[in-house]
């Protein structure tokens, strides 16, 4: 009798997960595999896609400097965005954490809420703020005396990085915030009682403990920035291409699907390698924090 019950309970989890598993194999794994295959197919202006196995697209990506430049730009923008979010997001999370209850939850809502607001709407906001040479940001910076002449933000990497950093900021604040929750406030007091000044406390006590949070936030921000589409497309315009907008162009304008698939596959593989690699590094380096 109990053997039957045991057998039932061994089968139950599979019965319960089977529909979702079938869904994921059928419409996630198979399409992804098809995309990788597609990147090896041939394409011509008039003949369309030819299901043969060739390395033409991969060869083109590897040899044409246009792609090297585009991937390098994508990487540069993602790295700078990550740095910007870390430099601003980590101190902000720390300040938030020291606020009193009501203010803390209010500002947490204000800062994290945008996470759920349409990326198109948020990027549009930046497009409005940047404007042309007499955009609001330029007017403000000039009236504050930060600079003499307006600098272009629209259709530049600077503009893309600022807008992307805004879009990604909640992820960084969240991640550092989570690390701060694990921190024992008494350690700070202990350091103070031993004569440490604020700068020493931040450098020697706070920083080492929130570093894992900053780094895991950085991984999220990096991978999302490297594959971002809406913000680079709207702020960057048609000329400043990044991996995602280039793949979009190949698919919906040039219609060279195999080449677009190769760009997408390369983006996916590069991101998976970077994310898995840095995760492993962080976990080894900070093993005691994750426990």
């Amino acid at each position, binding site marked *: 009798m109990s053997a039957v019950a045991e057998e039932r*309970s061994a089968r139950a*989890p*599979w019965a*319960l*997960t089977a*529909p*979702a*598993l079938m*869904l994921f194999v059928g*419409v*996630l794994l198979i*399409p*992804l595999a098809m*995309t990788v295959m*597609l990147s090896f197919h041939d394409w011509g202006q008039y003949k369309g896609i030819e299901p043969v196995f060739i390395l033409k697209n991969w060869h083109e990506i590897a040899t044409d400097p246009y792609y090297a430049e585009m991937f390098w730009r994508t990487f540069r923008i993602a790295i700078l965005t990550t740095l910007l979010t870390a430099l*601003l997001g980590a*101190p*902000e999370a720390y*300040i938030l954490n*020291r606020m009193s209850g009501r203010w803390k*939850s209010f500002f*947490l*809502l*204000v800062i*994290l*809420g945008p*996470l*759920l*607001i*349409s*990326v*198109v*709407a*948020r990027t*549009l*906001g930046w*497009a*409005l*703020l940047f*404007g042309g040479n007499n955009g609001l940001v330029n007017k403000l910076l000039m009236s504050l005396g930060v600079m003499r002449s307006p600098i272009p933000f629209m259709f530049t990497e600077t503009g893309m990085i600022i807008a992307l950093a*805004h879009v990604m900021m*909640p992820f960084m604040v*969240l991640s550092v915030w989570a690390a701060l929750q694990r921190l024992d*406030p008494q350690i700070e007091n202990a350091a*103070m009682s031993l004569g440490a000044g604020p700068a020493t406390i931040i450098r020697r006590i706070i920083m080492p403990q929130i570093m894992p949070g900053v780094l895991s936030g950085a991984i999220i921000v990096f*991978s999302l920035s490297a*594959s*971002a*589409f*809406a913000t680079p497309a*709207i702020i960057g315009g048609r000329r400043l291409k990044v991996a*995602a907008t280039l*793949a*979009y162009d190949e*698919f*919906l304008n040039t219609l060279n699907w195999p080449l*677009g698939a190769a760009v*997408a596959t390369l*983006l996916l593989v590069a*991101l998976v390698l970077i994310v898995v690699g840095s995760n492993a590094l962080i976990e080894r380096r900070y093993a005691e924090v994750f426990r």
Partner: protein
Amino acid sequence: MRRNGPLALIFHTFFVIVMVAPILVVCLVAFTPEGFLSLPTNGFSLRWFKTIANYPEFIHAFWVSLGLGALSSFVALLFAVPAALAIARYRFRGRDALAALFLSPLMIPHVVLGIAFLRFFTSAGLGGSFAALIIAHVIIVFPFALRLTLAAATGMDRTVEIAAVSLGAGGWTLFRRVTLPLILPGVISGWALAFIQSFDDLTMTVFLAAPGTETLPVRMFLYIQDNIDPLVTSVSACVIAVTMTALILLDRFYGLDRVLAGKGDTGR
């Protein structure tokens, strides 16, 4: 704990202003009485909200987005609730791998998903159809539906179920009368969060949508590509309003901090 110094508060003020400014400026410009992009310095006007009525494609796209979000989140829950119950209650071989697979759409760039689905549905003869959009959205919102349901199922008091079983309840009755009501807050918030994700997605949907099945973000994106005028700000303001409504719903049922901070997804 020590208080924030003046420098910290100045930094904080600057930070919050920068975070809010782009969203605020969109909402403000939407109320401009002028015919061009400008802040409403000469009084507020609903002119550009009324103009939306002259653009049926925006209204149609809004309904597509709303229906797509509601339906795909619901379908995702049909798959996610049983899966969440299994993962929360049983320790079986492959459990971790399954959980990782179900959360993987969070990790795969949406541009890659868009391309994969475009290729897949085109070869299946479903290119540009609403059905294709639903299935694709089910996949991308699934992790959100799963996570919140999982948190609810892990935190559930199982003695109530045991009591129900001892009173003769079983199978479907047990689920419908006992388990589901107990995890309902998690399920509803999972639906709301999934809805927001679907409602806001551009990157994947832009590959799949065809004229007629364009969602609102896609319509807005294509419009912005050509020109930026106050019309698109008033449409954005409406989108923000819908998201805010879902946010309030989420906050009521679940607590926004729990949703955003992802607390409970490890079952604590």
